[in-house]
């Protein structure tokens, strides 16, 4: 709206309220709604793989438990804690954006990215590397020779696909966050306009929720024996 542009004396592309919206409330509502509809598609995406996982876990329960038993539940728990920490720093980044504190916002974005990096490092260079060396990578290097080896291989297919698509989501999040960090550095956000930061927060917390389910499904399934 022309009035709002005049009010904040901003360039057209930096207007607090875009032309198509009446006010900030409506603009914020539209952003949240759009992001949540995207997250709904993501829920269906992960939901389909998790449904398939549930079917096969019930068909081959003992093989899935044997496969899960070979994973290190301690590292899984550590990674869960790292991801929860990154969710906290993301929530604090949104808070800093809402209160218009640029340096705090940048600091919390950087710490979220670092914690995400720690998670990915543990995932790729400690866990996956170890699994590959142990001969637990179906199709590449699979040497498990216990009972029901084929069904254990199926568990590891689910393991690599689920943690893999989760890791891809995290890498995408890191990329988007780098752009947001640059925008924050340029001073594009204010307590009047911080929608991208908040939407990034929704995405990051969603990825955290996915991990909250993957942790018991993959790591804790076979911990009890």
């Amino acid at each position, binding site marked *: 709206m022309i009035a709002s542009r005049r009010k904040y004396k901003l360039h057209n592309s930096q207007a607090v309220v875009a032309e198509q919206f009446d006010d900030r409330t409506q603009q914020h509502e539209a952003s949240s709604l759009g992001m949540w509809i995207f*997250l709904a598609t993501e829920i269906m995406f992960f939901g389909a793989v998790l449904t398939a996982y549930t079917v096969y876990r019930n068909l081959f329960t003992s093989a899935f438990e044997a496969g899960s038993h070979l994973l290190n*539940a301690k590292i899984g728990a550590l990674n869960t804690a790292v991801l929860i920490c990154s*969710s906290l720093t993301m929530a604090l980044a949104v808070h800093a954006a809402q209160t218009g504190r640029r340096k705090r916002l940048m600091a919390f974005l950087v710490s979220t990215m670092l914690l995400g990096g720690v998670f990915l490092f543990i995932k790729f260079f400690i866990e996956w590397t170890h699994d590959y060396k142990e001969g637990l990578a179906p199709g590449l290097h699979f040497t498990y020779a216990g009972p029901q080896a084929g069904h254990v291989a199926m568990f590891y297919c689910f393991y690599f696909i689920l943690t893999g698509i989760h890791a891809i989501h995290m890498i995408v999040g890191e990329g988007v966050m780098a752009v947001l960090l640059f925008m924050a550095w340029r001073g594009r956000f204010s307590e009047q306009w911080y929608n991208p930061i908040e939407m990034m927060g929704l995405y990051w917390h969603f990825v*955290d*929720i996915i991990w909250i389910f993957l942790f*018991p499904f993959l790591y804790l399934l076979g911990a009890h*024996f």
Partner: protein
Amino acid sequence: MSEHIASQKLYFIVFFSLLCLTLLTWRIAYIDLGRWNMVVALLISICKTGLVGMFFMHLRWSTSMVRLVVFAAIFWLAIMMTLTLGDFFTRNAVSHPQGWQASIVVPQPAAPAPPR
């Protein structure tokens, strides 16, 4: 004011609850509860999801429009899971009628070629 700004103290309370629940679910996994292991783990995961969704994702202060989308997402997920699992878990619940089995032709593997 369109957006609610939650206090940082609340975020820290949620954070510590999440860490405690993670510790709980991890320790419980080492106790053999039979089929209940997965049930307990899932219940804890759902509690954690509730905490993240309500406070970190601001659903506690969201409009009913946004909540409707979240509800729809979970509802459609429930449809997919109920129908798929309902199919798979009831396949052997009813015995096959006699005539059906006879009509199933199992393809036999081709005989290996005789050595020359």
